């Protein structure tokens, strides 16, 4: 019974908010009340994924995600083609990540500590070794410039195409390729020096092969 009620509630919502890019852009520019929810349903998973992958899985990304949508609603009127909506959201997310990394750097530089949010169990791996491995990956990424970090996270961790990454960072395609190759090789060097991490990941790989 409860299941039927839930489905009955969800079905019209899905029909109502699933719109294509052109329709979404139109209702966003008009300021239609449906626009907020429709754009959230369309882009929220991507925005949260990009933020978590660039900033680290243990960071609380709800605030930056709100900022991304806030900027999207402010700037959407500048758009002319519906196909530019997704690149705009990606570019805005990249900008927010850049700002967040800069703020984090300033806080660490001025030795101001931010109140730590409670760890989110849904996105952090449950076993301590893999959590530690991920923490070390983000510790390594902390040494890179924000552009390089964003490029690595967007392409390798989130799986965005080279063109999308290039567009988000305002770089040419060959420049993006060079940045990605450089970041990858430097991270490999860092991992090579981290014996504990290397041994752990090799053992995980062997277990995977054996299984």
């Amino acid at each position, binding site marked *: 019974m409860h299941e039927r009620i839930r489905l009955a509630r969800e079905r019209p919502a899905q029909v109502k908010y699933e719109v294509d890019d052109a329709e979404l852009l139109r209702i966003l520019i008009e300021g239609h009340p449906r626009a*907020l*929810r429709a754009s*959230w*349903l369309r882009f*929220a*998973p991507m925005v*949260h*994924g990009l933020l*978590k*992958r660039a900033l680290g*899985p243990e960071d609380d*990304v*709800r605030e930056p*995600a*709100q900022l991304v*949508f*806030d900027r999207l*609603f402010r700037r959407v009127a500048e758009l002319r083609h519906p196909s530019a909506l997704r690149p705009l959201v990606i570019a805005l997310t990249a900008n927010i990540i850049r700002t967040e990394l800069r703020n984090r750097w300033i806080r660490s*530089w*001025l030795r101001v500590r931010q109140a730590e949010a409670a760890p*989110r169990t*849904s*996105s*952090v*791996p449950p076993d301590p070794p*893999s959590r530690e*491995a*991920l923490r070390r*990956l983000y510790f390594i990424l902390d040494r890179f410039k924000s552009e390089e970090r964003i490029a690595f996270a967007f392409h*390798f*961790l*989130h*799986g965005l195409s080279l063109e999308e990454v290039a567009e988000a960072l305002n770089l040419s395609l060959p420049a993006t390729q060079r940045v990605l190759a450089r970041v*990858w090789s430097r*991270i*490999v*060097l860092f*991992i*090579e020096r981290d014996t504990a*991490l*290397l041994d752990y*990941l*090799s053992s*995980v*790989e062997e277990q995977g092969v054996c299984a």
Partner: protein
Amino acid sequence: MKSGVQMNFIERRARADRALSQLVNMARAATETLSSREQRGVYRLESTWAEKSSAAPPTAHVWIGSAFAARWRAFATIVLALVRVLSTRVRVYYQKALAHARVLDSSPRVRAVRQWLRKKAQRAHGHWLLLASRRNRRHTAR
């Protein structure tokens, strides 16, 4: 034909490369889904925009107050940053100057100048001694 050291290096690099691929997969899997708190973000977004659209334009007093506070915050941040930069720079310059002075003290040119001066002084001293001895001899002759 590669040597053992080269083989070890290549093997280690390949191992690190595979490890990074593994780590990338782990990072991808770790952040796959939206949590329920994140899904609820839409309500916050809607309420924020509802407030913004229904809110009256801010009064001059509020606007001035907020702008004033923001300016003070920005000013304090800049001053703090400047103080920190300057203190670090001053310390670094002082240490550099000390090190430079030490290096200068033991540089060959300075050593050569000192030696020349010492020789000059010795020669002058010697000359004075000679004069003195002549004077003494004159005195004794009298």
